[in-house]
């Protein structure tokens, strides 16, 4: 079917402003393929069903919308956890601020460096999961990323990583436009944790492809910062082998527009995938979209999606989640919950929690609720002498707790819980 004119125009304008890297080495084929695919499918426009609740215009415009730089407090979000630090400033690797890229049990390279070679183990991974993730729903922004990613990390865990890898994305320019790509391969039996934080750039397009082999496990915790104005489209594509585990948690506070997509394919029996997120948003600009697509293509797998959004002052929270159980994926256990807490009358919560099931011996459920804070609970707390604002914060944190429980690492969970309390107390300012 012919694409609508506005889509063709948007795509042409955006692609014309970008250029493929001159010497792309082993990524060359995938990049060229991605360029032709994105040209064919076109970039998202507001009329697309998959963008029903989020206007992608700022993500596809030729120039990014200017974003002020705030003194970020993101750097130390994971301060209490010992990590290997990697820093990108406005999407550019900062060697000085970063630790040396060596870690027991893991090899870490940079995409930009490794491209000088023609052969690399990651060649089979780069763009492969993104391509597979285009069906049944197109994700052209991720394809754009495959073609034009400038840098990122190539991580291969062959054993248990000695400590988590923490990637900080700092923003110093008001008009930076970053496209980064991470590739993660977790070999059989290996374990690695990836932490991410920071606003990154005025506009940020990041894609992470994660291949988790049999019995391997991958943990991911992301703090998308506060008080930033950046607009981001992130995507994680993961493929899971037998008895493997994938856990991802994202925390967002304030800021402007974010679209987080997570696409997971459970291809090995007995694997588990947990995706969770909390967001606290204030202000008319705030628009936070979690779009999750989990495909069960093996037996006895478990998936959980837990998303909580606290919204005030005209903020908008979006959740589009889907569990697809393919034929033969018997004994699937799929769970999905999305909840919105509206702290005032002007905020919006928009949800589309979907189930698509082709196997009969499954237990899948989803729930979605939205409402205000329970007045009776507030009254109870106030009658015990807790001031109203504090009572509201307390109940808000209690509301978010279920999602925070999804974080396995207690230290990290505790840090984030404290951070949330601080962010709640002091709204945008």
């Amino acid at each position: 079917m012919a694409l609508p004119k506005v889509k063709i125009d948007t795509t042409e304008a955006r692609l014309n402003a970008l250029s493929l890297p001159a010497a792309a080495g082993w990524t060359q084929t995938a990049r060229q393929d991605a360029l032709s695919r994105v040209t064919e499918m076109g970039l998202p426009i507001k009329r697309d069903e998959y963008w029903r609740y989020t206007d992608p215009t700022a993500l596809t415009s030729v120039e990014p919308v200017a974003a002020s730089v705030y003194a970020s407090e993101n750097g130390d979000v994971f301060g209490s956890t010992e990590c290997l630090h990697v820093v990108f400033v406005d999407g550019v690797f900062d060697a000085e601020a970063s630790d040396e890229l060596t870690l027991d049990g893991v090899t870490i390279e940079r995409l930009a460096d490794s491209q000088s070679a023609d052969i690399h183990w990651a060649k089979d991974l780069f763009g492969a999961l993104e391509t597979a993730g285009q069906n049944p729903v197109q994700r052209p922004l991720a394809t754009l990323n495959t073609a034009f990613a400038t840098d990122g990390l190539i991580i291969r865990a062959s054993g248990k990583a000695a400590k988590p890898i923490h990637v900080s994305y700092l923003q110093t320019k008001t008009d930076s436009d970053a496209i980064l790509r991470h590739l993660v391969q977790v070999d059989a039996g290996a374990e690695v944790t990836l932490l991410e934080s920071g606003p990154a750039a005025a506009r940020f397009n990041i894609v992470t492809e994660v291949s988790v082999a049999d019995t391997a496990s991958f943990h991911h915790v992301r703090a998308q910062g506060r008080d930033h104005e950046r607009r981001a489209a992130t995507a994680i594509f993961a493929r899971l082998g037998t008895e493997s585990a994938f856990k991802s948690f994202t925390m967002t506070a304030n800021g402007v527009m974010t679209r987080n997509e997570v696409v997971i394919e459970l291809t090995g029996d007995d694997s588990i995938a947990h995706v969770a997120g909390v967001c606290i948003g204030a202000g008319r600009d705030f628009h936070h979209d979690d779009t999750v697509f989990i495909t069960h293509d093996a037996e006895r797998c478990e998936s959980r999606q837990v998303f909580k959004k606290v919204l005030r002052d005209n903020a908008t929270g979006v959740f589009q989640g889907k569990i697809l159980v393919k034929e033969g994926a018997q004994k699937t256990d799929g769970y999905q919950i999305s909840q919105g807490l509206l702290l005032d009358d002007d905020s919006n919560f928009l949800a589309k929690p979907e189930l698509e099931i082709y196997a009969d011996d499954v237990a899948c459920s989803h729930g979605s609720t939205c409402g205000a804070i329970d007045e009776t609970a507030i009254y109870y707390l106030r009658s015990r002498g807790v001031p109203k604002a504090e009572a509201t914060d307390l109940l808000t944190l209690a509301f978010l707790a279920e999602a925070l429980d999804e974080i396995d690492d207690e230290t990290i969970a505790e840090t984030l819980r404290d951070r949330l309390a601080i962010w709640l107390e002091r709204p945008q300012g």
Partner: protein
Amino acid sequence: MAATDRPEMDVKEGVDQETVDAVAKLSGKYKYGWETDIEMEYAPKGVNPDIVKLISEKNDEPEWMTEWRLQAFERWETMSEPDWAMVNYPEIDFQDQYYYARPKSMTEKPKSLDEVDPKLLETYNKLGIPLKEQLILAGVEGAEDYKEGERKVAVDAVFDSVSVGTTFQAELKKAGVIFCSISEAIKEHPELVKKYLGSVVPVSDNFYATLNSAVFSDGSFVYVPPGVRCPMELSTYFRINAENTGQFERTLIIADKGSYVSYLEGCTAPQRDTAQLHAAVVEIIIEEDAEVKYSTVQNWFPGDENGKGGIYNFVTKRADCRGARSKVMWTQVETGSAVTWKYPSCILRGDDSQGEFYSIAIANNYQQADTGTKMVHLGKNTKSRIVSKGISAGKAQNTYRGLVSMHPKAKDSRNYTQCDSLLIGSECGAHTVPYIEVKNNSSRVEHEATTSKVDDDQLFYCRQRGMDEEEAVALVVNGFCKDVLQALPMEFAMEAQQLVAISLEGSVG
């Protein structure tokens, strides 16, 4: 098709003949698959402005109505078929359909029972409509004097394109209720039709509704005046008989201030190899303090067990709760049709208005159902409740698709949605696509959905009490649907319960 054509039942040892017979009786094939061999009058195949004019002319319509239809047709030509539903079917050739067919014997009204085409009478007899009503349906003058004093249901029967008769009109008239075919209403009550037609489902609403606006041939019209509680249940019976004929009926129900009406709708069609099109529009207007109950048992021919034939059911139904404290309740049992595309909706405009939607959708063999509801909360303190039970068996696909929207001004509103899916067999699919849009914080929205298979423990329990597997499944499924079955009027609840069992025939083992 005769019941003996049923595939050999696998009778397990120890099951007595009585059980076998009981199940055999229940598990008959599509019961209404026969065809009435009756002389029909057709308009030429296809649709164009001339056909639209012809339909209008056949119905003896005033000029404004013809104009309205032509405008709809013009609009329809610019539209394309929607493709977002989770249904697949071969492309429909809209020019390869008859848009108008009616029994020839209806050209002139018969004077007595002897003059009625016996085949028409036979048809209604087979459908189980009581004789006294048959007389009226057949258009016999004075038939309303036959009184039996039992519980009354007034029936408007639509045979292919035309309404063949409406019962109890006089008695309804006494109460001030107008219940007649829409073609009659256009002539007799143009002021009401003009005011309300297209006011809930606008001409340009969607592809099928627009087509319906251009070519609808008949349907029912109900007007309940202020403060009147309709003395009996009203019912429309739709029957598609002629081959290659699309049925496009239009129903308009107006419940004026403080009134109440309960409306039942039933549908059947003969069994044929070719798919047939059905695109209806139902509009309901509910004023202050009024209440409308709309119940449907949809049992169009679902296609045979190989997915051949069946009705394509593309229906737009919408209720507009205009007045404060108005109330609407949709109840549907969807067991028929090869493809169902249907979303009875509630526009909760009046403050304190209420909308309810209870649905059982059963898809077996190659049936595909994409059905659900829309609850649009506009007024303050509005309430809605959705209970949807989807059952998939064989190779069928069953989708619940729904929208709950709380607009900024719909303060203190409330929605509760529960949609459960049951899977019988490993080749079918059950899907849930809810849209939830909340734009104020004093409203509460809750959505719950589960998908599971028939519980083995429950089946085992039934089996060890001597039940056949199929019977056991029917019982468990009936239990699964209980919430919805209870919402049906008595007349329909029994029929629906049996339908549930019949529709699942052949789904086990």
